[in-house]
């Protein structure tokens, strides 16, 4: 059995000898590392939200001093009134923090780390020390990114997409140190992701417990596994492009600088070749968590488990050949517009399949509408809107009008907030008891959910209409244009909704912190789920399982006719169940 060869079987006995620093700071335990990522990313999420509110203030109340703006320096907001260059920087850094320092680490760094070993029945990751490095590289990358705000000239201001030549030469933005720090931080953070992906892939391939065949893996693990392959292949492209852009800025290369023989469009191709797989990195894990949570709370198997995997594989594959849809109006050969339109329209199909399968899971279920379920169903309902708005952009002639308008901003936020973030609220609430040994408060959770759902839709739905009105993106003062002046009221409405939305998140933060100390103590399996993680104490000890778990069935045997209870754990042996062979954990049988 592979277990006896695992390093932690030896370290297990020494666990109580570790110093506080080795146990909780420089830890190689995947659970501690997952929680470290959780705390870091929630800070990133908060920073991203603050940046959004600040830029929204200017759009909602143009030219008015922002409350508390007195603390901002004259170079950003003299008298509390935002300068256009600071506004551009806010827009850039909001996107940067949300994508790289909030959503991605929350989905992949937190839950990849926490769930994979527990749900496959392993004592830890394949490479626990490498895992520790993953976090300890991400932390300085975050600090470096934050330092950009304090640089002369301000932080990067060329958009989170950093298009060249605007981003390549300080002459065009007045930003020098900020953009450089941005590129370095992204490249360093990329290393953290690549190390993590290597670990996750190796762990899922090699450390599954006996009986945990590929087609008995929960969809959350499938999603994290496939996402890791995307990370491994896509992030190096971003890192390479970032280094090339850094060289353009510092050592006199001209990769992206047309004035000396370079190609501005090259940046876009490189960035979006990474960037499109990136958006699937930002949604696939969420889809996985939602499948687990909807099945659990419908007390029903996932409808179409194999179709769900097929759909994820299709998304993963097609995701590599759609990047040009970000570049329809870029000046690239128009013939490419047609080819990318076809691939982009096709990628709508697997997402549709998944949506119908989630509905099929709920159909004829026995639905418990607890906090994880509310958020998970909201994911489906909101993600679908984001997906449907994508169809407008895929149709290239329509994209001529809506490209670089608020219609795109609406789409982005319906998939990233309506999608990923609601899924994260669901996942954090669902796995919180396993992580911390306590339940989050359900009443606060429900109030947080309903208020968030309301203010979120009030904030982002009208952005579709702004886009239909022609409202461009990244515009400091729309009142410059007569055709945008009638839309000012909608901008103010959105800003007020956004402020209420951000304020509501205090409920989540309070619930998170208070429950850590005062929450109702959690049993091993408070949600009556089938996953292997619920067979351990809450929280699990170092090494996770006292003996190697044995898996007898798939993860979604809810309301099975074989037993009286409405759930049937993967590791519970019934009369007639065969022991898996020794080779079970080496591949699909």
């Amino acid at each position, binding site marked *: 059995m592979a277990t006896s060869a695992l390093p932690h079987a030896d370290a297990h006995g020494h666990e109580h000898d570790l110093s506080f620093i080795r146990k909780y700071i420089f830890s190689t335990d995947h659970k501690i590392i997952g929680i470290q990522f959780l705390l870091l990313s929630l800070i990133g999420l908060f920073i991203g939200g603050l940046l959004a509110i600040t830029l929204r203030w200017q759009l909602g109340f143009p030219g008015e001093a922002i409350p508390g703006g007195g603390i901002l320096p004259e170079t950003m907001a003299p008298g509390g009134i935002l*300068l*256009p260059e600071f506004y*551009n920087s806010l827009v850039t850094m909001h996107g940067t923090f949300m994508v790289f320092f909030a959503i991605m680490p929350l989905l992949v760094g937190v839950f990849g780390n926490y769930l994979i070993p527990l749900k496959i029945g392993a004592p830890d990751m394949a490479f626990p020390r490498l895992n520790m490095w993953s976090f300890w590289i991400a932390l300085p990358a975050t600090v470096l990114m934050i330092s950009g705000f304090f640089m002369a000239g301000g932080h990067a201001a060329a*958009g989170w997409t950093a298009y060249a030549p*605007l981003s390549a030469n300080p002459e*065009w*933005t007045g930003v020098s140190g900020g953009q450089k720090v941005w590129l370095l931080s992204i490249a360093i953070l990329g290393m953290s992701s690549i190390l993590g992906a290597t670990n996750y892939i190796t762990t899922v391939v090699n450390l599954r417990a006996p009986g945990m065949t590929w087609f008995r893996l929960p969809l959350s693990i499938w999603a994290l596994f496939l996402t890791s392959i995307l990370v491994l292949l896509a992030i190096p492209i971003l890192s390479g492009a970032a280094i090339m852009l850094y060289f353009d800025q510092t050592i006199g290369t001209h990769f992206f600088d047309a004035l000396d023989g*370079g*190609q501005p*469009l090259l940046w876009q191709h490189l960035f979006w070749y990474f960037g499109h797989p990136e958006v699937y990195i930002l949604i696939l894990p969420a889809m996985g968590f939602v499948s687990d949570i909807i099945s659990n709370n419908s007390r*029903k*198997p*996932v409808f*179409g*488990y194999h*179709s769900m995997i097929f759909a994820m594989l299709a998304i993963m594959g097609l995701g590599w050949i759609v990047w040009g849809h970000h570049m329809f109006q*870029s*000046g690239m050969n128009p013939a490419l517009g*047609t080819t990318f339109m*076809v691939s982009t*329209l096709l990628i709508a*199909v697997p997402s*549709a*399949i998944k*949506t119908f*399968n989630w509905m*099929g899971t*709920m*159909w004829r*279920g026995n*639905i418990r*509408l607890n906090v994880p379920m509310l958020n998970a*169903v909201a994911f*489906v309902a909101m993600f*679908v*809107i984001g997906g*449907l708005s994508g*169809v*407008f952009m895929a*149709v290239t*002639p329509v994209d*001529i*009008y809506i*490209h*670089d308008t608020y219609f795109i901003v609406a789409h982005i936020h319906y998939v990233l907030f309506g999608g990923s973030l609601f899924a994260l609220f669901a996942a954090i609430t669902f796995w919180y008891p396993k992580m911390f040994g306590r339940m989050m408060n359900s009443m606060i959770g429900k109030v947080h959910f309903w208020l968030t759902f309301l203010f979120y839709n009030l904030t982002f739905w*009208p952005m*579709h*209409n702004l886009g*239909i*009105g*022609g409202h461009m993106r*990244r*515009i*400091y*003062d729309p009142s*410059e*244009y*007569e055709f945008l002046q009638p839309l000012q009221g909608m901008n103010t409405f959105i800003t007020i909704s956004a402020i209420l939305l951000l304020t509501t998140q205090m409920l989540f933060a309070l619930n998170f912190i208070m429950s850590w100390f005062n929450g109702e103590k959690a049993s091993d399996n408070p949600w009556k789920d089938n996953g292997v993680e619920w067979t351990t104490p809450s929280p699990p000890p170092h090494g996770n399982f006292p003996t190697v778990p044995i898996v007898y069935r798939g993860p979604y045997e809810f*309301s099975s006719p074989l037993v009286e209870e*409405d759930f049937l754990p993967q590791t519970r042996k019934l009369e007639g169940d065969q022991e898996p062979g020794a080779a079970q954990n080496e591949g699909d049988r």
Partner: protein
Amino acid sequence: MGWILPEGFSTFAGDIDFLYYVVLVVTGIAFVIVELGIVIFLFKYRHRPGQKAHYTHGNNTAEVIWTAIPAVTVVVLGLMSGGLWAEIKGHESAPAGSIPYAVDGRQFEWNVTYAGLDGQLGTGDDFVVRNQLHVPVNQPVVLQLSAEDVIHSFFVPAFRVKQDAVPGMTIPVWFEATQTGEYEIACAELCGLGHYRMRAMVTVHTAEDFQQWVADQSAD
């Protein structure tokens, strides 16, 4: 609220808008089916004492149906769109006889080069005007679009025209205005601190007024 496009004033605006409305109807139907379905299921199948869930792992017929219908739908949308895209954006697709212009974007203005009285770009009677594009109504025009410094984007919402202006590239943009009047030009690609005020105007003249305007400009 606000799903109706503002009026368009170019020959291909109507075709673009038609595609938009087709997509709006199709996605609207999908939206209603999914959202209504979710709400109905949440109510109809909510937990009640003694209720059991229906134990099933799925249904292959259902999978085939809800794969095929979206697939056919998107294929049809694609087939409906490809031709119009080529017609608008194809590099050789400006109608014969289109009046030539050059439009050059730079931080933070648009410089328009006119062909002058001889109707040819690159001759001695060309002249440049900042932030004003004058065209005759019901006549196709083709702009050779370029940029001096960073990427800008030439956007005329009323004509459904948008094209990124890229340093080092010259990209043809054609349209035919269908109504006289004044229409705003906006920059639609973040280009620096003045991006928000990179505004210009298209003035669509009658044919006679346009000739007169060109003559007046040339006399200066």
